Every structure is written in structure tokens, then in C-alpha cells.
């Protein structure tokens, strides 16, 4: 502390406040950039959230390479490699991890180590804070999905959808799934009692969901009771929506009810979006504030 703060203070009432550059939009953009910068510096997040679906897809494709193809249930169309069949599930899992797992653990850490409290003592609006988090999730999830698709197409030789309709389905399921995941992640961040236990609380939830929702195990091969449990949670619907986008139509025969049921996908995700919004509104505090 070598130099003192030497600026002489003009009389306060005559000082003209200089608005922060760019106003609210500038504030949000700076917040997003800040969140992305700090996200990229966290090694465990990069491996277990960002890289995880790509790693899993590579493992699946190599491990099951010898098992040949999954025949098209309509008996006419071409079959799919194991990697191609599981790609949509991995895309859905990536969305869940980027939103729910990443934000729930990240915000729980910020709460327990005093960073949230510190923001609470500044004129930071909770909305700007959330926009920073969600912006970070969108940017990293776009990158993650793009990498996953590039690796699938050029590394593993999986062909991607060729119709505009399929990509439209992909786009809305991706966007709605990610928005829902962000809000559920923020809502879930209230659950861990400390930063140390955050991973231990959140990881089992997302991992179990991935196993029962048809990400790593073919959904129609699961027992009915497990399918029913999975149907309560959003990941099953995200995976189903992604299969509708990526897989040939004949594969809809393997779904519950022998159809893609995209409207049900939309309804289930919107319901969870509202749940996330309401829980966040009710539980989010800068600190565990006492009555």
C-alpha cells in the first residue's frame, strides 16, 4: 500500500455520476465474459462437465465397435452403429451437465466461500448475476455440442441429420432443454449445505438421471418402473427429443408408445422450466439470511 488515494473529493452533491459504460447491456456482457473466463480456469469443471459427454461418446463407440449395428425396427431402413444411436443421448446429457451440474455446484461454492455474500454487498442486481451465469452456460454449451457433433461426424464417422426439419427439432429441444437446465441448476444450488459437499450432492443426481433416462442404456430395454421414474424428470424428455432429431424415423418404434411424442417433450420441459423459476425465486439469497 504505497500510494494513498489522493483524489480530492469534490462536494458530493455537485459530482456528476458517470454511468457505467454500456449501461445494463454492457453490465450483462461484462458479467458473461467474467463468468466464462473463470469457468475456463476451473480444471475439474472442464473435465467432468464440459468434456464428459465427448469422452463418454468416444468410449461407447470404441467399446461397442465390434457389436455391429442396431437394426432399424421398421425392417426396411438402414441400421445404426452403437455410437450413432447413443449420440443424441450424449447431446442431451451435455445440456444437463452444462446447466444443472455446472451451475448447482458453481453457485453452491460461491455461496459457501463468501463470493455471493460479497456480491450481495455491492449494487449487483441478482438478474445481472443470473444473466452472467446463463450466458456462460449458453456459450460453453454451444461449444460443447458443436465439439461433440464435430467429433461424432469427423472422428467417429457418425452421419448427422440432413433435413431442415430435423435441425429445427434439434434447435428447439436444445434451447428449451438448456434454459430449463439452467434454472434447475440455480434452484438446486440451494440444496448443498456447504461448498465441500456440493459435488457429493449434485453428481449422484445427474449421474443416476443419465443412467435411467436412456443416455447410456437403451431406454426401451429398461424395466417399466425405471422408465416411469425417469419420465418424471426432464433428462428423459431431452434425450427423447434429441433422438427424434438425430435418428431415422423408423427408430421411433423403440420409444414408449412407438412414437417420438414431441409435444409431450415440450410440455415436460416447460413444466420443469416453471418449477426451476419458482424454486429459484423462492430460495435464492445472496447469503443464508436469518429471519
Amino acid at each position, binding site marked *: *500500500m504505497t500510494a494513498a488515494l489522493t483524489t480530492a473529493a469534490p462536494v458530493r452533491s455537485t459530482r456528476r455520476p458517470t454511468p457505467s459504460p454500456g449501461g445494463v447491456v454492457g453490465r450483462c456482457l461484462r458479467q458473461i465474459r467474467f463468468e466464462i473466463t473463470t469457468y475456463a480456469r476451473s480444471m475439474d469443471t472442464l473435465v467432468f462437465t464440459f468434456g464428459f459427454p465427448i469422452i463418454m461418446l468416444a468410449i461407447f463407440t470404441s467399446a461397442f465397435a465390434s457389436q455391429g449395428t442396431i437394426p432399424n425396427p421398421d425392417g426396411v431402413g438402414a441400421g445404426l452403429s452403437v455410437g450413432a444411436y447413443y449420440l443424441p443421448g450424449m447431446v442431451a446429457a451435455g445440456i444437463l451437465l452444462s446447466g444443472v451440474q455446472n451451475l448447482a455446484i458453481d453457485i453452491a*461454492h460461491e455461496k459457501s466461500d463468501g463470493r455471493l455474500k460479497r456480491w450481495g454487498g*455491492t*449494487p449487483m442486481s441478482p438478474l445481472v448475476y443470473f444473466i452472467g451465469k446463463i450466458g456462460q452456460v449458453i456459450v460453453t454449451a454451444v461449444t460443447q455440442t458443436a465439439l461433440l457433433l464435430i467429433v461424432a461426424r469427423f472422428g467417429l464417422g457418425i452421419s448427422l441429420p440432413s433435413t431442415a426439419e430435423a435441425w429445427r427439432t434439434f434447435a428447439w429441444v436444445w434451447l428449451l432443454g438448456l434454459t430449463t437446465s439452467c434454472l434447475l441448476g440455480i434452484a438446486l444450488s440451494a440444496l448443498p449445505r456447504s461448498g465441500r459437499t456440493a459435488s457429493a450432492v449434485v453428481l449422484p443426481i445427474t449421474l443416476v438421471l443419465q443412467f435411467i433416462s436412456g443416455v447410456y442404456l437403451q431406454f426401451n430395454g429398461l424395466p417399466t418402473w425405471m422408465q416411469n421414474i425417469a419420465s418424471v424428470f426432464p433428462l428423459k424428455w431431452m434425450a427423447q427429443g434429441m433422438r427424434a432429431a438425430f435418428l431415422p424415423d423408423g427408430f421411433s418404434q423403440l420409444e414408449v408408445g412407438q412414437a417420438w411424442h414431441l409435444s409431450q417433450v415440450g410440455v415436460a420441459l416447460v413444466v420443469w422450466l416453471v418449477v426451476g423459476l419458482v424454486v429459484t425465486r423462492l430460495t435464492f439469497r445472496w447469503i443464508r439470511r436469518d429471519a
Partner: protein
Amino acid sequence: MTADAAVQVRDLHKHYGTLRAVDGLDLTILRGETFALLGPNGAGKSTTIEILEGYRRRTSGVVQVLGVDPDHGGLPWKARLGIVSQSTVESDQATVRELLTLTRGLYPDPRDVEEVISAVGLEKKADTRCNRLSGGQRRRVDVAMGVIGRPELLFLDEPTTGFDPEARREFWDLIRSLKDDGTTIILTTHYLDEAAELADRVGIITGGRLVDVGAVDEIGGAEARRPVVRWRTEDGDRRTTVTDTPASVVAELSAQAGGEPRDLEVIRPSLEDIYLTMIDATSKDAA
């Protein structure tokens, strides 16, 4: 309520079940003043500070901070405060400069980032990630975060914990410059020399109440500040006397001893001595 008060507190209570953490506290802090709140751990200092900062809600009482009830303080109110909390944030992945630049953008009339970095002496660490700084350096980051918004009222809750003596002196210089800038400062500290050095007035809090408040050189009353003369008799016994006329006591002693009395000392009670005497007295009252 006084118009030129930065903080006004009347009959403040904060109860947790049967525990009365704050129990009828009154406090007025004037604009431009540096006020030190002293007291043992568990006396209610931090609870009081956190109520003023808007972090905790009170059980009852009237509180005005910069003319606003902290329970209803919005973002424009927060923009006028600077808060250095007791606990340091340890896990920032951001660099010092990144963190300050982002925070600066939240305030209507902030200080310059480079100016603040140099004021807290972190020029060489400006591009280091905060989680790679030492404890004392991280504390400087906390202080920098507290002053970047050019606050009218600055809360410093045990700001120099973990500082070496030199860093503490440099911090004092920084606080004096803020004071010259017209900033009102509320300080809690366990270092009584720090309070004596910086504060215009101090308040002593025990058992959730303010037991005394006054200028650093007046607190405790005239009785507590009477000089003490200490010496040893020829047998080696320690003797102490409290007197208003230390010079004549010393003269008398040297006449009796026929020379220099052994281990002679004349002590003016420091803030620390007065504080410890008062804390001791109130804890005996309570017992």
C-alpha cells in the same frame, strides 16, 4: 434523528431464541467520522455491523444508514456503501484486475482500477489470480473491493487480520487518505493501537450493549485515565499507586530511597489498558 448522522441506531435488538446477541444498543455515527467498535468475541459487534450492512434483519429497534432502513436498502443505497466483511474470499479464479474492473462497473461514480490497485499495494500482483495470493494479499483485495465504488460509508470488519506490522501501517495511511476524502468509516478491530491510531471516537460493546462511547482520549472517564506509578521497594516487592500527581509521588519516592527508586515507571493507561479494565468490570457485573 440528526440530519448529519451517517448511522443512527435506537434500541436495537437481535435475538436468536433466548440468546440476546444485541440487547438494546444505541449508536450515532456522524458523517465524515471514523468510528471504531470494540469488544470481545461474541459481544455483538459483527451482528450489529451486519444489521447495518443489510445482511441481517433485526428483531426490533430503529436503524437508519445514510438515511435508509437497511432492511429496505435497494441497489442505489448499496452503491453508496463499501463493505469489507470479516471473512476473506479465498477461491476467486479471477485476477485482481479482472475482479476490480467488473466490480467497478456496478457503481455510478467509481474510483480508477489502477489507482485502487496501487493504493492497496498490489501493482505487482494485479494480473495474478486471487486464489494464488497469500492471505494478507487477499485481504488487500477485499479492501480494494470495498473502496472501488468510492463509498460514502465504508465498513471495515477486522480489516488487518493477517497483516504484518508494515502492511498494517500502510493500511493505516490508506484509511487516513479515505478519511481526508470525506469517507465515513466504521471499523471493528481487535488491535487497540489500530483503533487509537485511526478512530475519532470509539464505542465499547459487551453483552450486546454499548457500554461506553467517546473520543479515543476521553473514553473510560477521567478515573480510568489516571496515571499509574510503579516501583520496587528495597525488599523487591512491587508497588503500584494511582495518582493525579505522578511527579510529586516520584519526588517523594526518590527522597525516601535516598536516590533512584528501583524499576520506576510512570504509566498513562493506553486505550488497551482502559478497554481491558472496562471489559473486566462488565464481565464481573454480569457474573
